[in-house]
């Protein structure tokens, strides 16, 4: 371990030594080989991002913060939640950093550490996953109603027309589809939940 470095950041106090390996920790937990340590801070990712305007930090800045061990700030960032997985940055990154997958890792780390600041996105994901874990298929109507009722009741009236359109045009099923071998899927997922990615 490097000599316990102290990084003073506003309000965050002294960095704990384990934070200095944050970059490594994130790389480990990411599917594929992330190449996160290869980032040259060129900003191609931040420049490519279609929704950068809504992010509190650009992806590039987030990776610099990972290097600096700013765990708290990174996990509280809205950036991973705004990422729409468009893969523009991924194919353009000159260093082949698996940026979009790192975003997934940061989301799951934020969920585990309960650090996210807006609960909508993780709840939406969780609701979706709940449907899949129950039926093996997604269920758009169930998802929409459940999610909107808890999070965006005010948006519902405006959307009623659209929802009705989707229903009358039979583009939303009233009842969920379910796979046959749900037991098998459940067994797989239960086992999977006990496993973690390390190398």
């Amino acid at each position, binding site marked *: 371990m490097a000599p316990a470095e102290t990084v003073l950041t506003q309000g965050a106090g002294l960095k704990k030594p384990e934070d200095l390996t944050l970059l490594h920790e994130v790389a480990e937990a990411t599917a594929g080989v992330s190449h996160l340590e290869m980032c040259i801070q060129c900003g191609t990712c931040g420049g490519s991002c279609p929704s950068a305007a809504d992010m509190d930090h650009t992806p590039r800045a987030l990776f610099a913060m990972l290097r600096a061990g700013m765990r708290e700030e990174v996990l509280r960032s809205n950036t991973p939640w705004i990422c729409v997985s468009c893969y523009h940055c991924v194919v353009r990154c000159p260093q082949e950093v698996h940026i979009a997958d790192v975003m997934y890792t940061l989301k799951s780390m934020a969920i585990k550490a309960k650090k996210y600041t807006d609960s909508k996105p993780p709840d939406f994901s969780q609701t979706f996953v709940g449907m899949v874990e129950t039926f093996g298929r*997604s269920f758009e109507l169930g998802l929409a109603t459940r999610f909107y009722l808890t999070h965006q009741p005010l948006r519902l009236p405006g959307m009623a027309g*659209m929802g009705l359109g989707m229903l009358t045009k039979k583009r939303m099923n009233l009842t969920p589809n379910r796979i046959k071998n749900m037991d098998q899927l459940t067994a797989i997922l239960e086992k999977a939940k006990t496993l973690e990615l390390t190398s």
Partner: protein
Amino acid sequence: MNKYLFYPGCSMEGSARAYYESLKAIQPALTMELEEIEDWNCCGATEYLSINLIPAYSLIARNLALAAQQKNGTDTVMAPCSACYLNLEKADYYMAERPALGEKVNEALAAGGLHYEPGSVQIRHLVDVIINDIGLETVKSKVVRPLTGLRVAPYLGCMVPRPDFAKRWSDHEHPSELDDLMKALGAEVIDFPMKTSCCGGHMTQIGPETAYELIRRLVAAAEEQGADIMVTMCPMCQMNLDAYQGETNRHFGTNYHMPIVFFTQLMAVAFGIDPKQAGFGLELVSAKDALARIGLKAPEEQKPTPARKKPEGLPMPKPLPKKYASGQTVVEE
């Protein structure tokens, strides 16, 4: 007969019903045999990955394992939905790139009596198989009602041409496959600069303001370029641009009316199939006017080729010839 293991994906039975119906309608003409993967499950879209990595990949890999078991004269899995296609491809690729991931996923699959060896099936998108296996010549030969005069903005969305681990697409940013397919139907194809930009994905659900802006840019660009209609190959793109166009208009006080349909719907119509059977009418932003342009107008007369102009200004570089995965070179006219 080209045979494929078929992974429809959840939205084909719901929001993207028009995609499914039009695909079924053109399937005989394309001599495509689709064998559905028995008891496939949801790919998890972009949601499961945010929650928990190993279960997310195990969920996807169950489909791959089932497909590998079912191999039956073909090892190609064809997915028409972008997110499904990407998830399947990514799982296959990452399980090999990071053996630790492969091992964990297989440990989970074993709990359901399954196993998947990365690389044992090929994962391909519908457009890819139409272009590279069936071929544009066959497509052209089936056209009975050319889409002459219809100005089409081809919109691929992001997840098919990217990240494209298997290098199946002619380009990440401006692939020409969908353009050429539309040209084969006789449509007038506009050089749509945002053809692989993002539609907002799940942001319509969790951060609508971010999504509205992305939708607005796309619809505005298509309108600015004079498109009558957008075609897509992705259920999510279709859903966002079609179902949320109204909300977007309300949000910005705009008045866009840009219909967006699946490319298979235009193929069906060009093949002489009844618009209703091709899934027209299911869209929320009506494609009536666009249809009228081909229905009402007699095929246009061949325009005389304009006299060769003296070169004006500075010459442009020649475009880089693009290559399809099948080795065909795309010729630009």
